[in-house]
């Protein structure tokens, strides 16, 4: 199929439609609104459910309803809206019904700004709502990948009866790139294929209940155990990542989404100049590619984590690789995007045989925004 130029938000919307999205509920918020606007045209034209809710709170609870009713359903928003959804996401996780959420992260905390950030990594990846549950979180670095991940997200959500989050940012949502769209899926009407859990009316079968209330601690423990087993199965089967020059890298840059896209340019430049630098890009943030990263870290001499936040994925990198290699961090907050040059400088300064004195020993001069990961939490957080 021919490649066409698509804007990220609209491309994701179209990919969802082609994956068989049957019911969309949303609320306007920049930088995600085109997604809603696109579906406002596309969904009714196909006879599918579209509704602009009165709030993200209502939107996610409508999604909850559509999900228990057995539909392929989705909502999309940006950071403050996703904060508003957290209670319902916890309910949805506990009820074990499938749904997809697209988050075009923007600057925060608070009303923040409209600029692209990755500052909601903790919120999205670690659960966000109350209780122990893990959404599957997928972070695209291009419009094409956003399309591809959105397309499979519904299958993943249904396979595990789990929340799948597409964690992107304003860059991905707003930029235009050539995309090859997947085919429009033919799907049977909602409710015509019974999977044994959806609420469709108890015609010719015992009634069903979709709930998340488990008053007895033993029962709640069983539900939790089931969620944890599911998370383990997801971790075993759904890890996704991409690598460039990673196998033989002395310095391994670790970044996801937009940050990885920018870092890639810097890594390529460093390679051209003969530095043994590679890029490891987690695509699934949960499940985090722990094993692969640990393996690479035993080989690399040093890691450099690059994020559009104050260091959130960093914690997962430390858990995976902290025992094997020293880790540096380069971050930009508030929606300020680093230029590839800045990351290049960070690479040079972290590089074991070039800028630094190797393996974190000795004194090195660090570019603005970059700090070595030594010392206590409070030391690390005192940014210059």
């Amino acid at each position: 199929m021919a490649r066409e130029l698509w804007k990220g938000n609209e491309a994701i919307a179209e990919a969802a439609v082609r994956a068989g999205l049957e019911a969309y509920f949303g609320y306007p918020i920049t930088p995600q609104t085109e997604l809603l606007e696109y579906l406002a045209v596309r969904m009714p034209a196909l006879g599918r459910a579209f509704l602009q809710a009165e709030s993200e709170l209502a939107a996610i609870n409508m999604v909850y309803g559509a999900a228990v009713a057995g539909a392929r359903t989705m909502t999309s928003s940006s950071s403050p809206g996703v904060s508003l959804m957290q209670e319902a996401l916890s309910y949805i996780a506990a009820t074990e019904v499938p749904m997809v959420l697209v988050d075009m992260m923007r600057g925060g905390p608070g009303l923040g700004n409209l600029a692209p950030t990755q500052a909601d990594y903790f919120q999205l990846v670690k659960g966000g709502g109350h209780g122990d549950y893990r959404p599957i979180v997928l972070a695209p670095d291009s419009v094409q990948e956003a399309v591809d991940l959105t397309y499979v997200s519904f299958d993943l959500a249904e396979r595990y009866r789990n929340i799948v989050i597409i964690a992107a940012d304003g860059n991905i949502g707003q930029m235009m790139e050539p995309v090859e769209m997947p085919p429009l899926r033919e799907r049977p009407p909602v409710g015509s294929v019974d999977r044994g859990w959806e609420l469709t009316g108890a015609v010719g079968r015992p009634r069903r209940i979709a709930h998340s209330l488990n008053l007895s601690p033993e029962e709640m423990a069983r539900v939790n155990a089931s969620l944890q087993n599911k998370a383990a199965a997801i971790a075993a089967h759904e890890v996704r990542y991409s690598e460039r020059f990673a196998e033989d890298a002395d310095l391994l840059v670790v970044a996801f989404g937009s940050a990885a896209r920018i870092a890639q340019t810097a890594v390529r430049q460093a390679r051209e100049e003969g530095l043994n630098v590679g890029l490891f890009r987690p695509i699934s943030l949960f499940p985090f590619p722990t094993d692969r990263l640990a393996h690479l870290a035993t080989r690399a001499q040093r890691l450099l984590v690059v994020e559009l936040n104050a260091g959130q994925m960093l914690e997962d990198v430390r858990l995976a690789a902290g025992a094997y290699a020293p880790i540096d961090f380069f971050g930009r907050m508030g929606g300020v995007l680093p230029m590839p040059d800045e990351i290049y400088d960070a690479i040079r300064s972290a590089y074991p045989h070039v800028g630094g004195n190797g393996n974190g020993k000795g004194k090195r001069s660090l570019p603005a925004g970059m700090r070595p990961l030594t010392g206590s939490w409070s030391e690390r957080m005192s940014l210059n």
Partner: protein
Amino acid sequence: MIGNLIPVYERPHALTETVTHYCPGCTHGLIHKLVAETLDEMGVTEQTIGVASVGCSVFSYNYFNCDFASAAHGRAPAMATGIKRVHPDRIVFTYQGDGDLAAIGTGEIIHTAARNENITVIFVNNGIYGMTGGQMAPTTLPGMKTTSSPAGRDVKLTGAPIRMSEMLATLDGPAFIARRSVHNPANVNRTRKAIRAAFEAQRQGLGFSIVEILSSCPVNWGKTPVDALKFIEDGMLPYYPLGDFKVSEAMKALLRA
């Protein structure tokens, strides 16, 4: 049938044989029965998907013999919207208390009514938060003592109770908005009729219907079951008049037929 006796009353098929957890004298159970009988009479129990709210009726999903979802506190109308948009041919209803519907879920009920969402809402108004142990609700009567208004509700501090039915009736959309009570048999019968009308409105696709039902909470009102029913009549009726607050033209035609 036992021997040649003919049953004149049976448990509605739409209710399960589960013993409810409601307190003695609580009218939640009675209202469940009225809803269940209506579903049976209309022959739609198997076509119905209920949405329980958070409050004393949270376990209603155990008592109704139809598919049931359990919503987050206040969000039942949004969840019901999601279900109805996916299954427009099913009967979808929410069952909500006054804390759920008139406090935390005010936004959802107003917008669901404004959209004229084709669902039915059973709104049980007992003027108090039952489940959490008797705190003040937006519907608590002026001067009424609750655990969070121990000196009696002071309307200067907390505003006056909200009359949800009257408020919703200002919207153009809804097909049917009525308030009823269950404090005596005559009113129970009127409530039954209103519930039937509300579900018929939905079945005919006329849009949003809600029946607000004044209900007792003997335990948190600190009254015997009999005195609690008396309190509905003497205490609540003067503030919450019974009646039909919105009957759309199409609904009027339906009721005449």
